[in-house]
């Protein structure tokens, strides 16, 4: 329960951080890391596929409301990420840091593929090229680099909460 609450708090914080004008200072060459994706992925990795996809769906829905874009597009994408990472997390064993780096790198690319497919289907075919853009690879690298830091922080807080 404490774990779930921790992730809910983190997601709320990152939604407001990413939507605030302050987020400009977090961007590298105009690309910001997706803290929400990182948190959803880590939640799925640590809690499993069921809480992972529910957290992903809820976070995605909030993102859609704030973005003003196609309602459900981020909810759909984050649900898939939550489910996928949750399943992989249950089956893969080894160095957690390396796993989180790989999960976030490939998770970002999957997010881009799903987003561009849905946008091309519901909005405009022009969105389809999004996943092949250089900026999405930069976002994948940024997410992969930040994920282990956040992973260490979250697991650290978790340990303190357990005491």
């Amino acid at each position: 329960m404490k774990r779930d609450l921790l992730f809910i708090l983190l997601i709320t914080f990152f939604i407001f951080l990413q939507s605030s004008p302050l987020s400009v200072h977090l961007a590298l060459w105009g690309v910001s890391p997706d803290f929400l994706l990182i948190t959803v992925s880590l939640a799925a990795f640590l809690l499993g596929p069921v809480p992972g996809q529910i957290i992903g769906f809820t976070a995605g829905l909030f993102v859609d409301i704030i973005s003003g874009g196609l309602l459900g597009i981020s909810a759909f994408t984050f649900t898939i990420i939550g489910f996928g990472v949750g399943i992989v997390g249950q089956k893969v064993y080894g160095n957690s840091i390396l796993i989180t780096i790989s999960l976030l790198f490939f998770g970002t690319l999957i997010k881009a593929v799903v987003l561009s497919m849905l946008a091309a289907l519901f909005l405009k075919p022009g969105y389809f090229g999004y996943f092949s853009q250089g900026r999405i690879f930069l976002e994948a690298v940024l997410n992969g680099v930040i994920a282990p830091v956040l992973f260490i922080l979250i697991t650290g807080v978790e340990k303190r909460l357990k005491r």
Partner: protein
Amino acid sequence: MDEVRSTQYKAIIILVILLFISFTLMGFSQTKITINFKSLAFAVIYPFQYAGVSSIAFVKDFFSSIKKNKYLKRELEQTRKLLQEYERTRYEFDEIKRENERLRHLIGVQSELEYDTVIAVVVAKSPQNFYKTLIVNRGKESGVGKWMPVIAYKDNVKCVVGKIIDVQKFSSRIQPLIEQSSYIGAMLKDSRYSGILVGQSPLSDNCLLQYINRRAEINYGDIVLTSGMGGVFPKGIMIGEVVSVSKKRYGIFQEALVSPLVDFGRLEEVYIVTKTVTEEYYGLFEEE
């Protein structure tokens, strides 16, 4: 083992349900019910966003005001001198303005930029790199309406930001000109050839000026302005500069990639032009 399997089955069932809900929401996203739901949720979230931004601004202002205090006296002196200069030039300006109006009247040209504006502060942006929408702290209460044009000043030059796509009582959402679903009537400043400026985000932060007559000679750095066609933007507002031109062997049109003057990442204040845009007129030009 059975427990693991049952968890996986449970996960798959929940996945199917959640994906179905998301897909349904996307399918009905354009209907009135969903838009109202979005507006309602947006209205609930906005006060928190505004409170967050205000708190950050308060803390920032508090510390910077201590720093700035010592410069204020010096600035006050400079401002007094400037004010005296402005007093002198004001009289001349009024004279020129009157003469300009008289000449415009004589040649039958109406003033193109005489619109009232509302100053608004950007309080939030889309949390995703995929969308670039902006939220400002002015809404219906300040006379803001849907499809109203939004401009900003960069180096004292008026430039296009985008248009209002969603209005609440105290807040509005802006669709920037770089968004893929944004269409703006534009023209080249020197040659006066017109076209339609289409956003390219998230693929690029540049815009594509389409349907320009093939005969038009377009050069790198050419200035692009609003053409006034489409009924949203007043004519003659700066959009950006041409960064590349694409002219195919066939066809009657050519395209140019335009770099917007506005830096959307660092936009803090905008001006909403409070002109009425009729949906019918707007619909003739826009796809939405």
